[in-house]
């Protein structure tokens, strides 16, 4: 039975955050593969974003090591009932491949990053301990940084599309 995010200890929160970054990398690689022929530009956005997720994961692993000294296994997101951050497709019907382009890919990524940022931000005031609150806040800041970067990319893409 999957556990609730709010029941996790600070150490587990970090481990599950690492697990989520790993899962996101896998999901984004699936998308990159899925759209490789129908929309190469969307595919390369997904590939780049997957690499970014790898970097996020590396940052979190380093942070974990800093706080807890020894790196435990990541906690798979499947063990948590909540959706913390999941990059997903937005389209449902009529050949979902058709509307995917670089812009749509970035929007999908942005949507997931926003969900994650919002999730951690709302978690901050609910934390039972100061330590947990600090971890939540750090994760929220990390996600806010990702949101900002994807927004910049989206703006640049908009200019490219318009130009």
């Amino acid at each position, binding site marked *: 039975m999957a556990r609730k995010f709010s029941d996790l200890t600070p150490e587990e929160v970090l481990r599950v955050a690492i697990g989520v970054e790993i899962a996101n990398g896998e999901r984004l690689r699936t998308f990159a593969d899925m759209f490789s022929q129908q929309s190469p530009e969307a595919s390369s956005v997904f590939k780049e974003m997957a690499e970014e997720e790898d970097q996020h994961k590396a940052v979190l692993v380093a942070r974990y090591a800093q706080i807890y000294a020894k790196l435990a296994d990541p906690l798979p*997101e499947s063990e948590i009932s909540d959706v913390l951050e*999941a990059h*997903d497709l937005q389209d449902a*019907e*009529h050949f979902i*491949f058709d509307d995917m382009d670089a812009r749509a890919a970035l929007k999908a990524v942005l*949507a997931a990053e926003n*969900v994650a940022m919002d*999730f951690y931000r709302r978690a901050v005031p609910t934390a039972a301990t100061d330590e947990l609150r600090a971890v939540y806040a750090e994760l929220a800041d990390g996600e806010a940084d990702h949101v900002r970067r994807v927004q910049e990319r989206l703006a640049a893409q908009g200019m490219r599309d318009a130009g």
Partner: protein
Amino acid sequence: MNALETIERRSAAAPTGLPEPSKRTFLTGRRMELFEKFPRLYWLVTRRWFQFAVVVPNLLFFYAFLIAGVFGSPVGNRNIIIIFIWILWWFALITALVPFASRVWCTVCPLPFFGDWIQRRALINVRTGRTCGLQNQMYGLNKKWPKALSNIWLQNIAFLGLCTFSAMLVTRPIVTVWVLGSLIVLAALMAGVFRGRTFCNYVCPISGFLSLFSMTSTLALRSKDLDVCAKCKTKSCSVGSDKGWACPWGIYMGKLDRNNYCGLCMECVKSCPNDNIGLFLRPAMSDTRIKGYDESWKAFIMLTLAAAYSIVLLGPYGIVKDFANVAEVGDWKGFGIYAGGLWLTALAALPAAFAACVWIGRRLAGRSDLGQKEIFLGLSYVFVPMGLLAWIAFSFPLIMINGSYILNVMSDPMGRGWDLFRTAQIHWSPILPEYVGCIQAPLLFLGAFYAIRAGYRFALEKTGTPAVAVRLAAPVSILVTAITLAFLKLFVG
């Protein structure tokens, strides 16, 4: 609300100690998951041979009907292709299959059989491999359909065109053979060039009304838990796997919130690695979102056709019958008037009357901030339940009056004097014709009820205030009532 919004709400709510999240689906209200309730049904649809087993008998019948159409009697009511397709099949489709089983006709439809084979080169087994991002080996050119045609406008025009000549279609076996034969050839050719069920999505004239009216159905295939889909790393429902073909209709289950374009082929049920797809029984008229003008116009066309057929086939106006029946009467000028009136009403007059009602409603509600397009699309759903119920009301007398022909052609399918089951000589006798009106009137009222309720609910969702919602939806409700009364006059006198 789309899936993402739902996820955001849930995710945002979780840490604040709100109630334990339960499985989230796009289905609201009462529902029953049939795969859980009937495990044998799940077993059946997850067999690789399932679709082959249900399509092949249908294909054989279809082939037999085509033969009867070519070599049998040219008299419509003595040929099985006319009686079985245009009376029995139509009646079953519109009164039972669509309202209670969504697009289950597409599960068993023989038209795409050869096309599927061209793309898969397999009848039962699934091929793994890589084709255009899918996890299956596909054959054919797998081209993209042009974006400008990626809607149901072609289907709208094709269906309206076919129905304009319906007097020929439903009385002359050879015309039916030509039309159905052409569809099967076109489906196969298109499958060789374009990917998946492009033909079904964008061209098949039957698909347009199936998609629209399947929104009303009590059956729906959906993700059992949207969170599982959001977290899913393979999206096998869309891209296929070693267990099932990629969705031929190009659907992603994790965001599917209406029935319109799911052909119920059950491939996704086989390929989902998380066993996360359920077949749900739910209240009628649950999908209410019209996404584009092409769908709105489909609703206008269907309602207009229901009225036109009722006038031509059931009404007391002999002259209109003669105009429509150009093949028999040969009055091309009259036919031009009939066809022009039909197209004008379906494509311009009814939409214009509706647009005017929407505009007046916005003024009455004092909500000109709500866009005309948004309200037009949202309220145009009212013609879906209304159109379906009008079609059902029209179809009942069809079977009650012509039902005895079914028994005749079963014994003598080609009209050649056979008597296989000793029913060929049964005399034509309508079934309880005096009760036709008693069936039609409640159906029309039910359609009006669902339509007005849907209009009000949409208006309430947009305005948030009951009094304002009533004003916004009032002109459209009046239009619905007026059309219902006109149908009633036509049916009951």
